[in-house]
């Protein structure tokens, strides 16, 4: 192989890496990937604005905790409003380790829930029909409806 061909090969390899990195970075930035774009009936990018009360740290008990989000982009599911309420299963666990025998179908890239973070989520509703377990909903008295069930929750950047 002559030096020109070597340079061309090296250049193509670098280009490939750059494309791959941009592609990965794009996914990380938007949270887009196969699960979040196909699971559930609603898909949004939203900012977590409130986690009411404390997240319970009792490993023996499974539960969902309802959190408040400001919707930034609706990808699927039509008009869901500016604010939505989403129940996350066992929220102290990273999403990639939260699926279990009770709830095998949940996941995502979010490691922990922090107010101000942006999440791209695949959602289903109402939560009562999706999850059979304890639901901590501090918004109940406000009469919020529907409460969504988070099927897939990826970290994303603000659009």
């Amino acid at each position, binding site marked *: 192989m002559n030096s020109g061909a070597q340079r061309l090969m090296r250049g193509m390899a670098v280009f490939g890496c750059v494309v791959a990195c941009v592609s990965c970075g794009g996914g990380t930035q938007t949270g887009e990937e196969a699960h979040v774009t196909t699971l559930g009936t609603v898909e949004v990018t939203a900012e977590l604005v409130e986690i009411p009360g404390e997240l319970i740290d009792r490993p*023996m*008990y*499974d*539960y969902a905790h309802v959190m408040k989000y400001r919707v930034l982009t609706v990808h699927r599911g039509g008009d869901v409003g500016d604010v939505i309420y989403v129940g996350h299963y066992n929220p102290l666990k990273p999403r990639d380790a939260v699926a279990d*025998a*009770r709830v095998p179908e949940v996941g995502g890239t979010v490691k922990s829930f922090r107010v101000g973070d942006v999440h791209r989520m695949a959602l289903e509703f109402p939560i*009562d*029909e*999706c999850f*059979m*377990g*304890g*639901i*901590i*909903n*501090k*918004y*109940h*008295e406000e009469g919020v409806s529907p409460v969504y069930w988070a099927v897939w929750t990826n970290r994303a950047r603000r659009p």
Partner: protein
Amino acid sequence: MKRLIAIFLFVSASHVAAAAPDARVDALKTEVAARGWIVYGARSDNGTWDLFLSRPDGSARRNITNTPDFEEAAPRFSPDGSRLLFRRLEKGTTIDHDRWGFQGALVIANADGSNPVAGEDGAAPWASWSPDGKQVVCLDKQGIHVLDRETRKEVRDVMKRQGIYQQLFCSPDGRWFCGVANVGGESWTVVRMNAATGEMNTVRTFQNCTPDWFPDSERIILSSRPAGQQVNDGYGYTQLWAVDGAGGNDRLLYGEEGYHIYGGAVSPDGAYVLFSRSPQDGSGAENAGGEICILRMADTPTIAGESTELRKLHPATKDGPVLFLTQGWEPHWTYAESGGE
């Protein structure tokens, strides 16, 4: 020297007193011995969970499943005592104290364990008996199902479960269901639902589970871990309570600091209560269960052990005798003789 001897005698006397058999427990044991049979799950010599039948005093104990290839748990006698239903799980499956009703297959057998008929894995979750024993009531995401015992086909329209998510039991008169539900934003709330109309009322809120009926269909026995306990680093201990099905008249039945009390089941005449106690929350289902106990209802409320905090809250405790039987989980009681030899 005299002081040392006095201390020695005092300590010896105390030890003898503590170790001495309690005549009241012996009386209780004699009293319940011929009152039918109890059934429970327990670890057997083959290493798996099997079902055991014994007299309520612990005598005549025998393994009625003895299946080294399966785990069996959560047995309940039919109301007439002629049959049992229970869950059968794959060998090696850990029984989950909260999820057991979803686990494995529903098995219906004769009360002595003979002629077991297993359904499909995962089918008929949280199955319990109808009052006549000809049907089983189940709970899943879709709602409350009533199935024919033999065909396991639906015999009525599915009812909305309205937030009930586990431990559904039909009252002896068939008018009500009780279960654990999300109500008013609060989980672990025990509720009562009218079996005909679906109308529902709250029985007791905050950290309650394992509800079951008294024979009168008016009261519910349940486990509760009340708020505000300082013991166990503020986590508290789970206690056994009775509450009116309509809500109210909450009454402590048994509590003991250092132990969580679960699996409350009232004897068919309402005179006794069967339960398990375990230092681990969840009643030890994931390991070898708890200690199965019997207490006279007339001796409730009873508080055992030092239980300083609990005794302050309930000064009128009767401290009745408690019969400690054996290690196991989810006991149930029939006065029928069909469970025996």
